[in-house]
C-alpha cells in the first residue's frame, strides 16, 4: 500500500522535473541565440597566439556547459525554495519519501557523461597547446630570476646566444622604463625554453592565455605562434619574494622582417 502511494507521488515528481527542465533549457539556450549565434566571450581574451585561441575556444565551450548546468541547478534550488516554503499556519505533513532509484541513477550517469565529454575536449586542446615543434623559426631561452627576466635569442640549433634582452629591478627601483621588452615575430613558430636561476617564477602573458612556471631543476619548453602584431604586457605570476609585484616584461610582436632587423641591431658579438 505504502509502495503504491510512493509510486504515484513519484510520477508527479518526474513530471515536475520535466516541466522545470524544459523551461530551463529554454532560458539557458535563449541568450546564446539572442546574440545572433555569437558565442559570448565570457570576459576572456580571445587570444593572440594559435595556442591561446585554442584555449579560448575550450574556455567558451566550458562556460556554455557550465551555464546550462548552473542555470538548471540554480533553478531547481530556487524552485524548491519558493514552491515548497511552509506557509503560515500550514501544519500538514509532507510526503516522507526518501529515495527514487531511477532519478538517482539519472543524476549519476548524466554528470558522468558530461565530464567525460569535457575531458575529451580538454585532451584535444591540451595536445594543441602543449605541442612543441622540432623545427621552430625562432628559439628563445627565457631566464627568470629575483627580480627580472632575461630573453636569450638562440641560433637555429639552440646552442648559442645571438642576442639578449635583460631587465632587472636593481633591488626594487623598478620603473616601467626598465621593463624588458622582447621582440617576437608574428606568424612564425617560436619555441621558448624557460628556466629560473633561483626560486619558482611564473611566466605569464594574459593575452596569450598562457602561463608556465620558471623553476630551478625543471626546464620547461613550449611554443608560441603569435597571430596578431602588437604589444603584450606580461609578468611574473608565481610569488617569488619581495619584489614579485614589479617583475614585469613585455612582448612586442612584429612582422618577421621587422623582427630580423631588430634582431640584427640587438645582436651581441657573434658567438661561435
Amino acid at each position: 500500500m505504502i509502495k503504491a502511494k510512493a509510486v504515484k507521488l513519484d510520477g508527479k515528481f518526474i513530471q515536475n522535473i520535466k516541466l522545470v527542465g524544459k523551461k530551463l533549457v529554454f532560458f539557458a539556450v535563449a541568450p546564446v541565440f539572442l546574440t545572433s549565434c555569437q558565442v559570448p566571450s565570457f570576459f576572456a581574451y580571445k587570444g593572440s597566439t594559435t595556442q591561446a585561441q585554442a584555449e579560448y575556444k575550450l574556455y567558451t565551450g566550458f562556460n556554455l556547459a557550465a551555464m546550462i548546468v548552473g542555470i538548471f541547478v540554480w533553478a531547481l534550488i530556487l524552485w524548491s525554495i519558493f514552491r515548497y516554503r511552509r506557509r503560515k499556519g500550514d501544519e500538514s505533513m509532507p510526503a516522507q519519501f526518501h529515495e527514487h532509484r531511477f532519478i538517482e541513477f539519472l543524476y549519476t550517469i548524466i554528470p558522468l557523461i558530461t565530464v567525460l565529454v569535457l575531458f575529451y575536449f580538454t585532451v584535444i586542446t591540451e595536445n594543441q597547446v602543449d605541442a612543441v615543434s622540432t623545427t621552430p623559426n625562432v628559439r628563445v631561452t627565457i631566464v627568470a630570476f629575483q627580480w627580472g627576466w632575461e630573453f636569450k635569442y638562440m641560433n637555429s640549433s639552440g646552442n648559442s646566444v645571438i642576442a639578449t634582452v635583460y631587465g632587472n629591478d636593481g633591488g626594487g627601483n623598478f620603473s616601467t622604463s626598465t621593463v624588458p621588452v622582447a621582440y617576437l615575430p608574428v606568424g612564425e613558430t617560436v619555441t621558448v625554453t624557460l628556466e629560473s636561476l633561483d626560486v619558482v617564477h611564473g611566466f605569464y602573458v594574459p593575452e596569450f592565455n598562457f602561463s608556465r612556471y620558471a623553476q630551478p631543476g625543471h626546464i620547461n619548453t613550449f611554443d608560441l605562434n603569435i597571430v596578431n602584431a602588437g604589444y603584450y604586457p606580461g609578468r611574473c605570476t608565481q610569488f617569488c619574494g619581495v619584489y614579485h609585484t614589479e617583475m614585469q616584461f613585455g612582448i612586442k610582436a612584429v612582422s618577421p622582417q621587422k623582427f630580423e632587423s631588430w634582431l640584427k641591431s640587438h645582436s651581441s658579438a657573434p658567438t661561435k
Partner: protein
Amino acid sequence: MTVITPRHTKVLSGDGNRGDSVDLNHDDDLEHGHHAGPSGILKWLTSTDHKVIGISYTVTALVFFLIAGLMAEVIRVQLSAPDLHLVTQHQFDELFTMHGSLMIYLFAGPIAFGGLANYFVPLQVGAPDMAFPRLNALSYWLYLSGSLIMVSGFLAEGGAADFGWVGYAPLSNGVNSPGLGPDLWILALLLTGFSAIFTGVNIVTTVFYLRAPGMSMWRVPIFTWNMVVVGLLILIAFPVLTAALVMLFADRHFGTHIYDATHGGVPLLWQNLFWFWGHPEVYILVLPFFGILTEIIPVFSRKPLFGYKGMVFATITIAGLSTGVWAHHMFTTGAVLLPYFSLVSYLIAVPTGIKFFNWIGTMWRGSIKFDAPMLYMMGFMIVFLLGGLTGVMLASPPIDFATHDTYYVVAHFHNVIFAFALFGGLGGIHYWFPKATGRMLRETPAKIGFWFLFVGVWGMILPWYWLGLKGMPRRIATYTPNMDYGTANLIVTLSSFLIVISVALFVANVIVSLMKPVLAGDNPWDGHTLEWYTSSPPPSHNFTKLPRIRSERPVWDINHPDHRTLVGHGKNLKDPSAAS
C-alpha cells in the same frame, strides 16, 4: 590512556522491545567519577569533556577567523585603488601569508573538525564522550599552542613567514627566507598537524566503537559519517605534510639539500608533497560543512534525507578520488601534465553533483521553514554551485594555464570557502547554538546578517573572477592605474565591508543572546538526530536516556509516531539492536 567503553550496551543488551526510550539512570556508573573535580578556569584547563573541548575549539577558531579577517581588510584597503602604499611590500607579503595560513590551518579546519565535530559526533551516535578524552584534550592544547606560535611570528625579527600559505620551495628555504618567522610557521604547522591527526583517530574510533545500541552504520547521521571519512582522510594526508615540513626544516637548519636543485635536490618534491596533503585537505575542510548542510535541510523541510546511502557513497567517493588529484594544482609546473589528473578531478564533480541533487530532492515537495540555519544553507548551496563550476574549469589544464595564480583562482577558492565556511559555518552555529548553550540566537540580526553576507560575497567574487580573466596576478602589493583594475578592486573592497558588517552582527548576536537568554528547550527545531534528545546543554555524560534507534532519525520517529521513517523499503525492523 582512558578508554571509555560503551556503557549503554549492557543496559540494552538482549532487550529490544522496551518501548520508545531506554532509561540510563540506573547505570550509576554514569553519574559519578568525573564530577567532583575542579571548577572555573581550572575546570576548563583540565577538562576532558568533548563538549568543553568542542566549545574551546570553536571559540578559538573564531578568534583566529576575526584576526585573519582583519588582515584581509588591510590587504583589501591597500588594493582598493591603484598605487596605494598603506603597507610596504614586505608587510603585504606577511599579511597575505598569515591571512591564508590562519584561515586554512587555524580556522576553517579546526572550527569544523575540532569544534563542531568534537561536540556533536559523540552526541549524534549516542556516546558519553570521545573514545580517548585525554588525547582529545591534548589535541586542543596542541592546536592552541601551534596557533599562538604561528601568530607570534609577527614578533620575530624579520617578521612572520612571507612566502604564501603554500610555502613553495626553494623560496621557503634558509637562503631565500631566513629568520625565525618561517621556523615558527613550520613549527606551528607541525603542532596543529598532530592535533588534527589525534582528533582524526579519536573521531574514527568513537564512531566505530561507541555507537549506541541500534545505531548501525547505516543509521549514523550524515554529519557524523562525513566526519569519519574526514578522519580517515586526515590520517592519510597529514602525515605527508608532516614529513614535507620536517624535510623543509632540515633543509633550513641541518644542511640537507632535499629541495635544493643546486645540490641535486628536487624543489618540485615540495609541491608534490604539499598538494598530496593539500588537495585532500580541501575536502577535509569542506566535507564537515557538507555534513552540516545535510543535517539542516531535512530538519527544516520536515522530510527524511533524500538518498541517504547515495550521500554516504558520494562522500566516500569524493574522499577516495581526492587522494589522486593533487597535481591539478601544479599543471603550470609543466611536470605533471598527465591527463589522468584532469580526468580524476572532473570525476569528483559527479559525487558532488549527487550531493546537490540529494539536497534538492530532500527539499522537493517538503514543507520548508526558513529559519536562520536553513537560510544560511540556501546561501551555501547557491554560492557553492558557482565555485564548483569554475573548479571544473580549472581542472582543465589549458584553462588553468590561462588563469593560474591570477585572481580567477583567488575568486574560485574564496567562492567555495565563503560558501562553506561562512554560510555553512555560521548556519551550523545558528543551528547548534541552542543545543550547546540552551539559548536561541536572535532571528532578525541573523537574517539581516545573511543578506549582508550574500551581497558581500557576490560583490567580492564576481569582480575577482573578472580581474583574473583580465590578467591581474594574485599576491601583488599594488598595481598601476594604466591596468584598469581600479574599479573592480574598489567594488571588491566595498563588498568586503559588507561581510565585516555581517560578521559583526553575528558576534553581537552571540553576545546579546548569552546576556539576555531566550531559552531554547531540548529540541527547538524539531531535530531528527540524537543530540536533540538530550537536554540543552547536555549533561556531563550526554544522555540520561536513549530512544530506540531504528532509522537515521530516531528523534523524529519518537516525536512523529504516525510518520516514522520507513526502514528497509517500508518494513519496520523488529529489533533495534539486531542490526548493530
